């Protein structure tokens, strides 16, 4: 797959605070790439650097395999933090400015306003819009010219549930159309629903990076209940089948060793003369994986 964005050894400090440290990322064409992390983890700083808003202290990044240039940003649709437009201009004029910057005709304005469900407000001033509408205008501006790549930083920030759903729908549609998406968010479920690849940052460092499916499938966890949980726990700990066994709400929560299947646990329990009442494979959510990583 073609490289869209390559980040190598990127670092940025604000006085004493290291916002990102020696960050390496590689994003390929067609990926929906989520950048996850708690507040202050360096998500916005990373996206601000690659969109030219701030300069890195060290390291480098390349767009489409080339050294960064302003002209490359014209084929990228970005929304970094809150959308900022000319408050006294109406939506149409604000988007005309974006078209002029990108060097494209005004013909696409109607389409993106329709997509963002703002067509009926095109003559309203930007300052007169609600927060949700402003956010949608930010996305509409990012969609102008049908860019190859979308860079969205917390696009659902400050939106009500309806607004979140609307924005998510717009973004998902772009992903389904094969666009490359780089999405920074601290809303884990959002990343899980939209992205197929994820990088987890904490205090500017990359903690984990890979396809969402792989990250979630790292360890298989099952919950078991039998006629003697204490006995089974001791026996499982003494075996080489599990990594970890704990009791949660009267259930044994068992993290399996690599390549061990729940069927083997079932056989092991049966051979230990114990009777299983309940056995369930627990799907790890991105949230639990994320919380585990950032807790460390």
């Amino acid at each position, binding site marked *: 797959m073609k490289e869209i964005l390559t980040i190598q050894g990127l670092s940025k400090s604000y006085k004493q605070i290291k916002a990102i440290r020696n960050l390496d990322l590689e994003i390929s064409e067609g990926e929906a790439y989520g950048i996850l992390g708690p507040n202050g983890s360096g998500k916005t700083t990373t996206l601000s650097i690659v969109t030219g*808003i701030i300069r890195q202290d060290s390291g480098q990044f390349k767009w489409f395999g080339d050294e960064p240039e302003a002209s490359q940003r014209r084929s990228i649709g970005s929304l970094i933090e809150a959308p900022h*437009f000319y408050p006294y201009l109406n939506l149409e004029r604000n988007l005309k400015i*974006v078209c002029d*910057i990108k060097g494209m005709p005004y013909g696409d304005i109607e389409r993106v306003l329709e997509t963002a469900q703002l067509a009926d407000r095109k003559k309203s001033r930007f300052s007169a819009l609600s927060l949700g509408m402003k956010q949608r205008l930010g996305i509409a501006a990012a969609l102008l010219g049908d860019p190859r790549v979308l860079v969205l930083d917390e696009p659902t920030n400050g939106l009500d549930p309806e607004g979140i759903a609307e924005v998510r729908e717009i973004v998902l549609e772009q992903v389904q159309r094969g666009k490359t998406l780089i999405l920074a968010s601290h809303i884990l479920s959002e990343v899980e629903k939209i992205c197929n690849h994820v990088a987890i940052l904490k205090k500017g460092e990359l903690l984990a990076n890979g396809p969402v499916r792989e990250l979630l499938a790292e360890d298989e966890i099952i919950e078991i209940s039998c006629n003697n949980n204490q006995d089974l726990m001791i026996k499982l700990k003494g075996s080489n089948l599990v990594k970890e066994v704990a009791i949660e709400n009267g259930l044994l929560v068992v993290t399996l060793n690599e390549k061990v299947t729940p069927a083997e646990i079932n056989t092991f329990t049966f051979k230990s003369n114990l009777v299983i009442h309940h056995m369930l494979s627990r799907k790890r959510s991105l949230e639990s994986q994320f919380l585990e990583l950032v807790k460390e």
Partner: protein
Amino acid sequence: MRRLLHIEQIKLLNYNPFRIALGIYFLAFSLGLIIYPAIDKQIPVISLSDLFRFPDVWFFLTWITEPYNILLALIVIMITTKEYSDHTFKTQVIFGLSRAELLLQKLLLLVLLAFFATLLLGVTTLILGLIYSYKLTFGIAMENTWILGRYMVSSIAYMSIGLLVALLIKNTALSLLTFLAFRVFVDPVLFLILRKYEVKWYLPMRATTQLTPVPDLIEIFERKMNNPEPVDNSTFNILPEGLPAWLNMLMVLLYISLAIWLSYRILQRRRFS
């Protein structure tokens, strides 16, 4: 360049404070030029009407309208700091303008403003000259029009210094105050402190105002007293003060270049968040 100018056009022609400030500029300019000749009638013995005759009118009007450049600089400050407060520099960079283009669009704007200010001055001077001159030939009317070029450079100098102040300080009120303090207080006070030294002529605002210097009014009134008949082809001098004209122009061009270079450096390093 057309693209950058078009962006500025959309931004500014729909921005009320800009339109109002520009309206005030044109109003002050036009009113001034109506009022000055009217004052003439109130002053006994001395007639100022000689000052409005070709070719002297070119020197006189460039001198009296030079302070209007302050207003142009304040307009540039206002629209530049507004980009900061609305975070629109950031938006323009995100969508693909380089930092050099951010500066270029403002420079194009200030050259355009300077051009229109000079054009306005040229047209009004021509009208007043035509009204007040007794005898007219094309040669007399067009003599001294070169001063308009110096007026335009002076306008650009004012606005580029204004732009630098705005980019440096970012806050509108503080930038306006700093610029005004520099033009009205700091530069003149430094000029007074350094009055015994030649270096006083190298001060940025002083060098800029010297581009359109005070005409030798005493000379013209003396001439008027000695020869009460109106004479059209005797021009008055510009007071022989300050640096030689070429050096003065060079200094102002250096200050303009310095202001633009510093503005570029600031924009290159600025974090747009």
